[in-house]
């Protein structure tokens, strides 16, 4: 990621290159190349958005007494919203451990497939690397908070990415 960002002389041009790749990958412009950032897109056979995971994350948001900001026009099962909720839960008391575990199941239900799709479709590699990092983070999070065997390393700040993505397993579905 760092190499790609530092490769160009003009930061604005680099930003536009990344913006172009972003909409091709995530906004649907790329058609079959789309790596949809919504959990619903990986749920069931329809590949439609706004499926059951949207309602399930909405319920978790209500339980956490938070809501999606009114200027964000995205459904609740967007990857970034699930990660933001996960971050908020981490800052809360240990009493929400079960909710954390449930949200980790949601994240793990689609993060591996999303990362695989990014790896396959991202031409420049920036978002594939970001997705790799995200997947390592989500896996480490799940392991660290569920008492499973801990990962060998974790990424820290802007230093090296230490968690390898590994092979994707079939996702475990959260209870409906």
């Amino acid at each position, binding site marked *: 990621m760092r190499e790609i960002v530092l490769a160009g002389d003009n930061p604005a041009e680099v930003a536009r290159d990344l913006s172009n790749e972003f909409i091709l990958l995530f906004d649907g*412009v790329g058609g079959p190349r789309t790596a949809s950032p919504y959990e619903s897109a990986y749920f069931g056979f329809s590949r439609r958005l706004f499926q059951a995971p949207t309602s399930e994350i909405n319920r978790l948001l209500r339980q956490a007494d938070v809501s*999606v*900001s009114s200027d964000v026009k995205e459904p609740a099962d967007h*990857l970034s919203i699930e990660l933001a909720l996960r971050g908020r839960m981490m800052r809360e008391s240990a009493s929400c451990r079960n909710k954390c575990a449930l949200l980790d199941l949601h994240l793990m239900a689609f993060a591996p497939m999303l990362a695989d799709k990014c790896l396959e479709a991202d031409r420049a590699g*920036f978002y594939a690397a970001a997705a790799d990092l995200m997947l390592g983070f989500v896996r480490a999070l799940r392991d*660290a908070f569920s008492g499973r065997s*801990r990962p060998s390393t974790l990424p*820290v700040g802007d230093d*090296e990415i230490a968690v390898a993505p590994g092979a994707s397993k079939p996702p475990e579905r959260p209870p409906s």
Partner: protein
Amino acid sequence: MSIKDPTRRSILKSGAAMGALGLSGSSLLVSGACAASAPSSETLTGSHWGAIRMKVDDGRIVGIRPWERDSRPAPTLEGVMDLIYSPTRIKYPIVRRDFLEKGHRADPKGRGDGDFVRVSWDQALDLVVSELRCVDAAYGPGGTFAGSYGWMSPGKLHNCQSHLRRMLNLKGGFVTCTGDYSTEALEVMMPWVVGSTETDQQVTAWPVIIENTQLMVFWGADAINNNQVGWLIPDHQAYVYHERPQRDAGSGSRKRAPRLRADCVPLRPV
């Protein structure tokens, strides 16, 4: 640096890198839960594929069934949900990068190669206004054509042609058109054939056709497939007549269209 024993602090710190995958994490959530959505309901609505009842749960469409008085629901009706919830539906304004950088001096060769970038709605509107002013200055009112593709979702809110003309009326001075590309030829031709345009007027009803017609030619039309979809909201009643005997089957190289009980004659005989 990497660590071998993750702590809550280290995990929180590494979370900062997640912003690269889209929305910024800090401002996504605000305190205070939204009220729970209204309980499940079923709404009667319409589509180009027929009248439908949509089940809505937690603000989401979770099921669809045809209107019970539609005797021949279109098999494609389920696709309405794909239309609404497709992962490839574009939700944000985007613009070709070369146009964003160079305006009307952008190289037209780049059109269609997917080199788009996302812009804000304000920026998108500014680009449109700027280009309209530029065309006005260079070519006058004759330089802007208020033409748009005609199909839209049923319901006048989605009439793209009306929206385009309303928007251009704010500026004034543009070229518009009469009629439409679908029926304009019919409106000229049909008065000579049947005495009316047969488009915006009452069309000849199927019982009259069956009673009086010796030979009916569908030219470049597949009545069975095409009548699944309608310009407004079809009730598919035409299928009742399609299935009545209209003509004995032919033979030789002609093919039968069983549901119409008619011959399908290839344009170029086999």
